[in-house]
């Protein structure tokens, strides 16, 4: 890239509009968000304090398990027996179940934003079952393990999203 082109690009960037209007009115949500945080700041903080470790623990657990598997796979010599993908999936499922239940318990007093979130959760459960069945046929398939992990992440994020503060709906 010539310095002339580079200079021209930087000039164009500086002349870009600093003002782009959003396509919808965001104020209602902001006003509600301010109100809600003012009213429930201490309570919200307490809630966040109780939920955050669960969500974080779930992420850390997934990453740790997956990382451990990949690293042990690379380091293991022929004499070292590495756990199979299937075993790892079983451990991951067990941990996920515990995390999910704990998260649901911690959020049980908060209203959900959608009516059909439990149905969505069940559909994800079915997807996880299908992946686990595929893993039984193909126990060393790392791609399936990643898919399973992805489904679990989606479940956690679905639970968190439907219990998000009201202002995010607006």
């Amino acid at each position, binding site marked *: *890239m010539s310095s002339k*082109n*580079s200079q021209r*690009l*930087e000039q*164009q*960037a*500086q002349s*870009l*509009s*600093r*003002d*782009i*209007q*959003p*396509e*919808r009115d*965001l*104020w209602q*949500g*902001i*006003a509600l*968000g*301010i109100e809600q*945080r003012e009213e429930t700041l201490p309570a919200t903080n307490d809630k966040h304090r109780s939920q955050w470790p669960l969500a974080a623990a779930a*992420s850390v657990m*997934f*990453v740790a398990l997956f990382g451990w598997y990949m690293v042990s796979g690379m380091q293991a010599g022929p004499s070292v027996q590495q756990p199979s993908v299937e075993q790892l999936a079983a451990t991951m499922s067990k941990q996920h179940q515990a995390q999910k239940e704990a998260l649901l318990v911690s959020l049980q007093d908060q209203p959900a934003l959608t009516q059909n979130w439990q149905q969505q959760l069940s559909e994800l459960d079915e997807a996880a079952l299908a992946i686990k069945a595929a893993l039984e046929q193909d126990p060393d398939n790392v791609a399936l393990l*990643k898919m399973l*992990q*992805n489904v679990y*992440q989606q479940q956690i*994020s679905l639970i968190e999203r439907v219990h998000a503060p009201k*202002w*995010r709906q607006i």
Partner: protein
Amino acid sequence: MVEQPGNIVEAQQRFASRKDIDVIAAAQQGDKAAYKQLYETYVGRVYALCLRLTGERTMAEDATQEVFIQLWRKLSNYNGQSQFTTWLHSVTSNIAISYIRKQKGWFQRTFNIEDSPVMDDSDAGSAGDVELDRYILRLPERARHVFVLHAIEGYRHEEIADLLNMAVGSSKAQFHRAKQLLTEWMDDE
């Protein structure tokens, strides 16, 4: 005496600043109507920055709301020493970057193609049909953040490194990469 156009502009700017100061002071005292006025004045600026940083309309809308919700409490920190817009852009960048971090899980950031473009061209129209804007939104995330902060917002690479938790050299490299990609795309058109 006929006032020169330059003087008119200057006078208007002075008036706007004076008016802003009164509105900001009222909002700092907890006047929500004044705060709404501030929102109406600056939402375009905040949204433009959020859109360019997130690269995606829905996320930019959420980030804009988050900025104004947090700004309500942070407003008391503004002491008038700098231009309000300078302070606002700095607060917006910080909140938007941390919002993006929160929204993207560790797994996504690590495995998902951290460097792949995040949007399709259908979102580009929301950036005001400016060709360069369309390409900026197509940039890989890190390169986009660095380009927006350095080339548009005027941040120094040291400041960007601090904000994005990266080395100064990485910020410069990402900026170079962004420029290369943008030039290529624009030349191809």
